[in-house]
């Protein structure tokens, strides 16, 4: 099988072709990451006049802070909820659209629209609908006997950011699921149908395994999305409140660093966040990927 391998005589060509990509990775990813690691060992005044090296003080302070540990726990809940809801809903939508022959394209276009909305705009949208004093949905809920005030009620605030963050991601997942579903050969399902398998049986034993590469890819993308990309949504809807109940890790990095000007602690938090995501991704590839059939 290895006989077809081509060997290029030029030693430098592959490096030359890779160089632009490597340069971009270095300048925009590796270098800032190293800067963050460096800052996480320092204490600095906001204007940057004086920097003191303080070893692990930023880390030890964080890990001893119950607020930080709370934020960790909240982030976990948030990430799981967003991933499950965003993937679940989009799978249902994708299956529904996949069955339509004529109007499938129209639905696909409509369902992809929310992805074009910037996270902050999406956040403002939900903030506006659920605003306790002027929101239309909080008014409707009030009419139904539910007092909606995410300014005071921590659970409602969490529901709000989960909804806003999931809504934003459903389009993306939907596109991949539709593509995945369309690559499932119809002949397999037909054969199973002839053998007497019902729709659920066919979906579970044929479609789900064949979708597993897509699902696995989306799982990683969605967890990363929930961990890193949702800060705009949180900022616009709840700003981490009330009483820090929606202060997820990525928002805390932003709030402490950019609003609180505590760069050292913020850098330490982003390093920890980076580590958590690296560990999560490695775990996924080692254990979840085994169940994926390509």
């Amino acid at each position, binding site marked *: 099988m290895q006989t077809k391998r081509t060997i290029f005589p030029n030693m430098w060509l592959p490096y030359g072709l890779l160089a632009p990509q490597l340069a971009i990775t270095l300048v925009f990813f590796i270098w800032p990451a190293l800067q963050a690691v460096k800052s996480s060992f320092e204490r600095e005044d906001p204007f940057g006049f004086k920097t003191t090296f303080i070893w692990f003080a930023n880390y030890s302070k964080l890990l001893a802070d119950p607020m930080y540990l709370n934020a960790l726990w909240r982030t976990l809940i948030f990430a799981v909820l967003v991933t499950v809801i965003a993937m679940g809903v989009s799978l249902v939508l994708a299956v529904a659209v996949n069955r339509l022959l004529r109007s499938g394209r129209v639905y696909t276009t409509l369902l992809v629209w929310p992805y074009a909305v910037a996270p902050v705009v999406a956040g403002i949208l939900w903030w506006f609908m659920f605003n306790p*004093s*002027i929101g239309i949905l909080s008014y409707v809920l009030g009419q139904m006997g539910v007092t909606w*005030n995410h300014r005071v009620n921590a659970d409602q605030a969490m529901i709000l950011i989960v909804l806003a963050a999931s809504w934003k991601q459903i389009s993306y997942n939907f596109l991949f699921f539709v593509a995945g579903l369309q690559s499932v050969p119809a002949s397999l399902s037909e054969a199973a149908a002839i053998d007497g398998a019902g729709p659920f049986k066919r979906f579970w034993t044929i479609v789900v395994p064949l979708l597993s590469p897509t699902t696995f890819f989306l799982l990683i993308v969605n967890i990363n999305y929930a961990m890193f990309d949702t800060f705009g949504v949180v900022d616009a809807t709840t700003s981490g*409140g*009330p*009483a820090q109940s929606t202060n997820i890790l990525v928002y805390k990095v932003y709030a402490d660093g*950019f*609003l609180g000007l*505590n760069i050292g602690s913020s850098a330490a938090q982003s390093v920890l966040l980076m580590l958590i995501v690296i560990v999560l991704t490695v775990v996924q590839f080692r254990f979840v990927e085994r169940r994926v059939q390509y």
Partner: protein
Amino acid sequence: MVRHSFAAGLAALTVALSSSIALAQTEVTWWHAMGGELGTKLEEIAAGFNASQSDYVVTPVFKGSYAETLTAAIAAFRANEQPAIVQVFEVGTGTMMAAKGAVYPVYQLMADNNQPWDPAGFLAPVTGYYSDTDGNILSMPFNSSTPIMYYNKDVFEAAGLDREVAPKTWAEVEEFSKKIVESGAASCGFTSGWVSWIQTENLSAIHDLPYGTLQNGFGGLATEFTFNGETQARHWDNLAKWSKEGLFRYGGPAGGADAPPLFYTGDCAIYMNSSASRAGVIANAAGFEVGFAPLPYYDDVIAEPKNSIIGGATLWVLNGKSAEEYAGAAAFFTYLSQPQVQADWHQFTGYLPITNAAFELGQSQGYYEANPGSDIAIEQITRGTPSDNSKGIRFGNLTQARDVIDQEFEAVLAGSKTGQEGVDAAVARGNEILREFEAANQ
């Protein structure tokens, strides 16, 4: 062909000449945080200065909220892209004062540029806030405010209350709110912006209670918060209780973005916020008549309430710009302190008159008689003799400390903490922030 290129050359020369004329005007960038009605007025002031002379052009740039403007200025300073003038809210004063290398003190700027500068001409409660220990003013007072109470006279009448009498004490606020809610005149009694500033900092000052050690932070960096007294705890408990009873509605953290619409729509009858909300209140309260009154107090804690303390912002000049830009900034500050300019800004916005001359001008114009209630803020901030507890507060990283206060207050509001537990936790967490600031600025 020759004619054609000659014409083109002439055109190019004209363009070059006119652009060199434009270059002769030094541009002075001014970052600010005034949106809405206030922003429009601020741009008018800059335009007024630009029209008054031909050497400088002041360019105002809106940078978002106060916190965002401060953060943007600091980030810009680190990148050497800072504006010449930046508006910093009073909460950022400690941070700016500690940043000695970043700031060009105003008294020095005015002296270096031979501009008139008389500290005695400014309103004392304002300048005390922004002076160093030697009494030199470090930033240009621009928009200082103090919280007052607005109320809906029509709702008061509908609830069977006297439309001209505002509640004086917190007991009356509770009593009036009950009447208002029970009679159905409005769905809530009162709301408030800025819980940290109004219901904690000003509450402490009015009741002559210390907010922190070392004269509320004026005495140095080694200060600690002490606002976890009985009265503050009781007040938070009361607010939580009133919130449950539907008498008080929380407007949200920091400035309280939900509070103004609650008042404008007539949902809440009473609204406590900065005197500078006046412009917005007048613009938005179209359907009802607004009354103005000083902040309430607990009459069993203090018989004669002390003065309230200021909020708002001053203009800081940042280091690292050219001498021409500083000359422009100094000329602009002279323009800004003129009584006409100040009185106009104060009367339109509800901010305090920054200079005594501006206040006197308003009096001689008959402005305060024609607009009842417009002098409430000045009267409230200048009443009595200021004590160490009511002179003001100055702490580093106060923005973060205020966030902590909002968070703990929300916990009290949700019922997961008592008022005392809330203020105790806020003090403990706030002190950690102060130690962090002290360590970074020693």
